[in-house]
């Protein structure tokens, strides 16, 4: 088998799984991740449906396995700059962005982070709380090395400070380095760039950005996380009060010809999980999920919904609310809706009505990752109408892109949950192995 190696772009759970499988097959893997740590979206989740496993607990061993595998070279805080060539012989240029930290010396102790005076937007916590200019994205980061964000660092922008350098006992801070360009020769490329949440500000009727107590699903996830900015206490933004009633609005931007026509697939389960967690943390808390179709199609998903209804005080209301207003005094959002299934509304006559709650969670559409278009262009890939990586032969080769030798797994090629992403990741490993094995009598086009 050609061991020119494989490039995996994206260090979320799909990229990690693909890297592990490929490495176990004896191939040299270069795992390129844009942020300072692998882990992706799964690291931001508190629990995962339908098992309610602690997300980080099941992710961390995989991150460590990946990083410590002798066949995996982790290239975090790096980006794919350029690609040329063809299947079996791609030439890739990877830009390693400067961390300003010598990773061979940094022990991840975190002393520098404590002393850094500069606080900025925290991407991992989606803007709730702040991080420092020198930072570890989250406590279980792999690799456990700090990074200096050049745009926020006082020294790099204004020539002041350098407290981190003074504090570091290992002498790991180095303000000198230029970025590094790596030239790699690989036989195949796997894309696993994942997703971004859609910004619901555009849906003005829902008041995101205007009404404080209207938040997104990902923000809610960080609030309820034990390792999040409020240590798992569900404090609503306006006054820190714990909500007694929460409304979850599904399909915000999804299944909507004005924004994204497709279904983001995981939000029904995601909302159910969040509602269950809320009630678990605060018995007596009631949740209302405003849905169009409850898409719980996976293994043990229907049973999860039944539990939500029967044990966790979750009420499903079939409706796509028309607008959300706010009670200026209390900060309580008011959801205006028309319950299409009369029975669920508890009202014999179908009418437009309103429900006052303490917190609204918008389950927004999930879209392919922001710079996905750029990467697709560099690789010569086609995108489908949803903006996802187009698959040439959906039935027989569901992880093959339109370019031979390049494969795609996980959300970047279509909305899907963790098990489906992990399956696709392993599937790309099989396809890569196949494509790198000299063909004997296989008929490519039957």
């Amino acid at each position, binding site marked *: 088998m050609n061991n020119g190696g494989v490039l995996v772009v994206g260090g979320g759970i799909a990229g990690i799984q693909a890297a592990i499988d490929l490495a176990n097959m004896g191939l040299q893997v270069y795992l390129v991740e844009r942020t300072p740590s692998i882990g992706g979206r799964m690291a931001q989740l508190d629990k995962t449906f339908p098992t309610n496993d602690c997300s980080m607990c099941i992710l961390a061993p995989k991150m460590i396995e990946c990083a410590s595998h002798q066949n995996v070279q982790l290239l975090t805080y790096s980006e794919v700059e350029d690609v040329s060539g063809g299947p079996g012989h791609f030439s890739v240029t990877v830009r390693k962005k400067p961390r300003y930290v010598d990773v061979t010396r940094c022990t991840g102790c975190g002393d520098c982070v404590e002393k850094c005076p500069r606080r900025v937007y925290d991407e991992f916590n989606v803007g709730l709380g702040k991080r420092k200019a020198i930072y570890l994205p989250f406590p279980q980061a792999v690799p456990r090395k700090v990074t200096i964000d050049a745009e926020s660092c006082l020294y790099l922008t204004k020539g002041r400070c350098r407290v981190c350098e003074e504090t570091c006992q290992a002498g790991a801070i180095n303000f000198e380095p230029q970025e590094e360009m790596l030239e790699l020769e690989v036989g195949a490329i796997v894309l696993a760039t994942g997703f971004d949440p859609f910004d619901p500000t555009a849906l003005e009727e829902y008041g995101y950005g205007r009404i404080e107590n209207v938040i997104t699903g990902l923000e809610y996830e960080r609030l309820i996380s034990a390792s999040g900015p409020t240590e798992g206490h569900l404090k609503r933004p306006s006054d820190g009060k714990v909500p007694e009633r929460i409304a979850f609005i599904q399909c915000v931007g999804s299944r909507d010809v004005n924004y994204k026509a497709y279904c983001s697939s995981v939000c029904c389960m995601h909302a159910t999980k969040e509602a269950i967690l809320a009630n678990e943390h605060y018995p007596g808390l009631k949740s209302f999920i405003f849905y169009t179709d409850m898409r719980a199609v996976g293994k043990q998903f229907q049973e999860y919904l039944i539990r939500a209804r029967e044990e966790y005080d979750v009420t499903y209301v079939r409706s796509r609310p028309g607008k959300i207003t706010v009670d200026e005094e209390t900060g309580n959002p008011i959801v205006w809706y028309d319950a299409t299934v009369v029975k669920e509304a508890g009202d014999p006559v179908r009418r437009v009505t309103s429900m006052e709650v303490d917190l609204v969670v918008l389950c927004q559409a999930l879209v392919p990752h922001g710079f996905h278009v750029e990467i697709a262009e560099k690789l010569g890939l086609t995108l489908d109408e949803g903006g996802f990586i187009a698959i040439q032969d959906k039935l027989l080769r569901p992880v093959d892109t339109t370019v031979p030798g390049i494969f795609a797994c996980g959300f970047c090629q*279509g909305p899907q949950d963790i098990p489906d992403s992990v399956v696709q990741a392993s599937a790309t490993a099989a396809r890569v192995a196949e494509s790198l094995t000299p063909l*004997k*009598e296989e008929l490519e086009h039957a």
Partner: protein
Amino acid sequence: MPRTRVGVFVCHCGNNIGGVVRVPEVVEYARTLPNVVYAEDNLYTCSEEGLSSIREQIREQALNRVVVASCTPRTHEPLFQSTCEEAGLNKYLFEFVNIREHCAWVHMHDPARATEKAKELVRMGVAKACYLEPQEEFESEVFPAALVIGGGMAGMTAALALANQGIKVHLVERGPHLGGLVRTVQTLFPTEQATAEVVHPLIARVSAHSEITLHLESEVEDAAGFIGDFDVSIRSNGELQDLKVGTIIVATGAEELRPVGLYRYSELPNVVTQLEFEEKFKTGAELPDSVVMINCVGARVPERTYCGRFCCSTAIKNAIWLKEQNPQTNVYILHRDVMAYGVDIEKFYRRAMELGVRFVRYDLESPPVVLGEGRAEAVRVQHQLMGRELDLPADLVVLTTPLVPREDNERLAQLLKVPLGGEGFFLEAHLKLRPIEFATDGVYVCGSARYPSNIPESVSQAYAAAAKASIPIGEGLVRVAAITAVCDERACSACGNCVEVCPFGAIELREGRFGKSAYVNTAQCKGCGCCVAACPSGAMQQRGFDDRQLLCMIGALAEEMTDGTAAP
């Protein structure tokens, strides 16, 4: 027998440990411990300097045990272990003591107590180290062949994926042809291609591949063994054939539910399932004027709570097909949520609506009623959104049913020592991160045998299973970390407790030199230690975590608890 010579390396970790714990004091103390012949402190034990020092001292001081007191074994144990190996010391003679995460970092305001605690932890670590024994990691050869059970889309894909990597595959199919469930489907979703166009070439490739041995009209009769070394008996046309394989993939699929007793299915001739619809009407029968499809028949009900996942897709596919044959046909789909998840299915749903397919939502508590004598003529449904009852004219009623587990899943599950879930489908090792593996190593599952999956999903799973199944074969060896359980036959009374508690079925009772005793299959053992704690005689022990080692840690901790005299 050489005397135990322990070397202790205590790390400052810059300021992290050294700023709280008085490291030199801990080193001094370590020197006083029994069997410790050498102790030093390092600024960073994990640095090149620190590691060199370990290697050097192993040689100079003839150390045969090494204890490092620093951070956490969860990140750094492999590093120190390989450092020991480089100096010629078996890596299982290394012990890690955590005095950072568990000590310095959590007692920052109490350096005196933190230092005392660090000393005690080192004392415990040294005590355990003295009882460590060199271990060899178990290696078992992997027979370079795989077995795929089931010749449908999943089975064929997995077989080809393996064969294309040069791996020999035995593909066992109980029927006379390859193809499985998809043989009864005429057009495929989402590409709307004719099945024959897609599946026949696939069948041809599988049949022609030199690495695939096809066993048609065959079934698995018996199976034994473990990863790398499975012995399987296949019955073909009455004859038994024995095969040896390294890994096994279960791709036996599932069956469409025949809804006997529901919606007058067995009673009326024009009430059919979706597959029956395909078979009859897509092959030339006269098309009806008005078709009513009822979804969730036998699914998402108290007796069968799961969702069939792609039955909505099937109904939509067939509804679109009907409309394309004749736009005048009335097509109604009665549903309780339209499971059109993702991009393609949602798009199809929208298209169906644009073509005039009417979707009617009904309630579980007021299911539709099929009306007519001798033939179905109409379907009465309580339209949940309109809040009133409708009678929909029907020349044909199509019942959308889920796939259900095959009846012989249980037999196969027992043969392969893998579990079934509550619904009767095969149960994977972990729903989230190991969806196509079993807890039993070397056996994998894909396609609807695991849970109803459409073709792209089944095919992805098949590729994934092939990837997993190819890895042990590619490595040629299965290597197991030497923390497995081992039974001392002389002390074993064959009570069987261990066999019962082992979550992986890795233990069996067998006749040995000293009569019947428990025997651990190291290749399957995961090193949890459940069996050890369940053993009444202490015959079962765990390498690296045996009773003596753990008890002496307890003893070491307690030893100076009294007024200086020895423990009772």
